[in-house]
């Protein structure tokens, strides 16, 4: 093995440009795989972190009549939770309503939240009481789509406890920026006390957001959905994105491996006399097969070394400064920051190195097997076609 490594190293370094072209292609594939996966992992990490911070907390305690996937359940999907069970929980009450910015009707989801809650990142401390209107905060996307800004008043219409329409002005006291569209698009946040008063549903909540200290327990008429379960959909989307992206990098790897395979095939054809000489000098055929296989593997090892030399500073820089994404990419429907900080984990790097090295070894071995069947006399004459 040591001899084969020594000889393969000499052969590859001696082969000059042919070697470095292959190494270059493999290095590119190696870096691209890590780069793309790093972005997806970074996106995944940020999306999860932001979604937990802005929406999910440590899990949701849902009223049993409320189904997050069924808007018709909002009307009746609320209830009162006993005081002893409210520890480490922040109530959210949902109601449907409409606002009329610039004279047009926009259906919204009205969300009541405690002013002094600290579980979610929603800036509820910015609720400033106003005598003439209900204080409300909205996200940047909502503000853009409705053309509302801080200080604007807009008419809000909702149904009261009797099902009758009621209306009052809300005043935008803050516009928050978030990467989580599900707390932004079509939503207006107001103090829950106002919503209780408006709907006559005092102390009611559609669901509670749990903080880190919350210990799940069985509560009648309420269902606990853990943070992991809430993140399931996001995980599925990220996983799907990873699968579709993997096609791209597998294609890249396939091109690089094809270059190695072609080089090996050509090499075995062109180096027949050399192979015959190895055998004449006393190498066994399996040693020659091993030598050519290790030569192919060594392309990937060189690519790993060069990939590290280029990749470590590049990826370190990217993970610190992040990568800006165009504004249009924020409308994808899932949490996506305008600047993604790629995450290059050790498992990603080692996994990619293993993938490149193992696949390069396999594609090098496949043509090298032919050497085992070569007649050394014919090889020495260079007569094998």
């Amino acid at each position, binding site marked *: 093995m040591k*001899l084969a490594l*020594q*000889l393969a190293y*000499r*052969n590859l*370094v*001696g*082969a000059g440009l042919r070697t470095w072209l292959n190494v270059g292609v493999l290095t590119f594939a190696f870096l691209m795989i890590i780069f793309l996966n790093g972005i997806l992992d970074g996106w995944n990490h940020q999306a999860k972190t932001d979604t937990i911070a802005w929406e999910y907390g440590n899990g949701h305690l849902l009223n049993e009549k409320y189904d997050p996937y069924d808007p018709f359940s909002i009307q009746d999907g609320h209830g009162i939770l006993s005081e002893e069970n409210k520890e480490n929980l922040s109530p959210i009450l949902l109601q449907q309503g409409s606002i009329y910015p610039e004279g047009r009707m926009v259906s919204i989801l009205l969300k009541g939240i405690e002013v002094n809650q600290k579980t979610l990142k929603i800036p509820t401390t910015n609720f400033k009481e106003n005598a003439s209107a209900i204080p409300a905060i909205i996200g940047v996307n909502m503000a853009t789509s409705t053309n509302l800004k801080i200080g604007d008043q807009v008419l809000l219409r909702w149904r009261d406890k009797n099902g009758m329409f009621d209306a009052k002005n809300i005043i935008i006291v803050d516009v928050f920026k978030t990467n989580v569209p599900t707390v932004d698009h079509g939503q207006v946040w107001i103090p829950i006390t106002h919503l209780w008063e408006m709907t006559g549903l005092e102390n009611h909540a559609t669901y509670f957001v749990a903080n880190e200290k919350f210990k799940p327990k069985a509560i009648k008429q309420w269902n606990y959905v853990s943070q992991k379960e809430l993140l399931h959909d996001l995980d599925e989307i990220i996983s799907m994105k990873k699968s579709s992206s993997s096609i791209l990098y597998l294609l890249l790897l396939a091109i690089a491996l094809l270059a190695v395979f072609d080089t090996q095939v050509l090499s075995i054809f062109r180096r027949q*006399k*050399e192979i*015959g*000489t190895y*055998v*004449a*000098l*006393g*190498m*066994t*055929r*399996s*040693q020659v097969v091993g030598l050519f296989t290790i030569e192919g593997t060594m392309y990937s090892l060189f690519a790993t070394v060069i990939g590290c030399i280029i990749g470590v500073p590049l990826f370190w820089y990217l993970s610190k400064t992040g990568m800006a994404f165009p504004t249009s990419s924020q409308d994808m429907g899932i949490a996506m920051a305008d600047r993604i900080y790629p995450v290059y984990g050790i498992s990603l790097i080692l996994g990619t190195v293993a993938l490149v090295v193992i696949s390069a070894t396999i594609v090098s071995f496949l043509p090298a097997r032919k050497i085992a069947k070569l*007649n*050394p*006399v014919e090889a*020495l004459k260079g007569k094998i076609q």
Partner: protein
Amino acid sequence: MKTETIISLENVTKRFPVGEGEFTALDHINLTFTKGEFSGLVGPSGSGKTTLLNIIGSLDVPTEGKATVIGHDIASLSHKASAKLRNHHIGFIFQVFNLLPVYTVFENVEFPLLLQNKTASERKKAVMEALDWIGLADYAKKKPNKLSGGEGQRVAIARAMVKRPEILIADEPTANLDAANAHSILKMMKKLNRELGTTFIFSTHDEKVMTYLERIIHLRDGKVELDERIKNKNQAS
């Protein structure tokens, strides 16, 4: 010492498939070679010289008959055993030198010793000694493409002799050399034959080579036509 049989060929026949028929390259060859011989196979192209050398060198096996080289029946050797035989006991010199192009002169000569797992210091000592024999110690770091034809063949001789084999097989070693280089190479081989007791077997149709040989075996159509021991003017060179 010269009476010790090192190679024995009994009814060695080699046939190659050609189309739907067969071509007989060697036809019932019976020969023996003793230790320290400086002999050559002579004959026109297609007479079976190279085929016979390949069988002696364990690169090929006879279709019929028995070839025994240093006590080993060539036909019964495994790939591994024949590789070991070549690595330890048989040196090869080819018409086109067959130096490994990406290696330096030193590395080319060192190669057989690497396969023998010799230590770095043993290898260095042996390689420098072999390069001294051929007068190219100063060329150790050169690549084969920087050498002339004569120098390349001398490096090939050093590579074949560095492991001090019992048998050295030289297939048309002077075919690509001018007269001066051919004589120089042959004198060197003769010297190594005398000093190290290595058995040299040539295949040639070069008159210059024949003037150095102690024994000339004439082959024609795969058969031994004449096996003569001669006294040549250059034998004492």
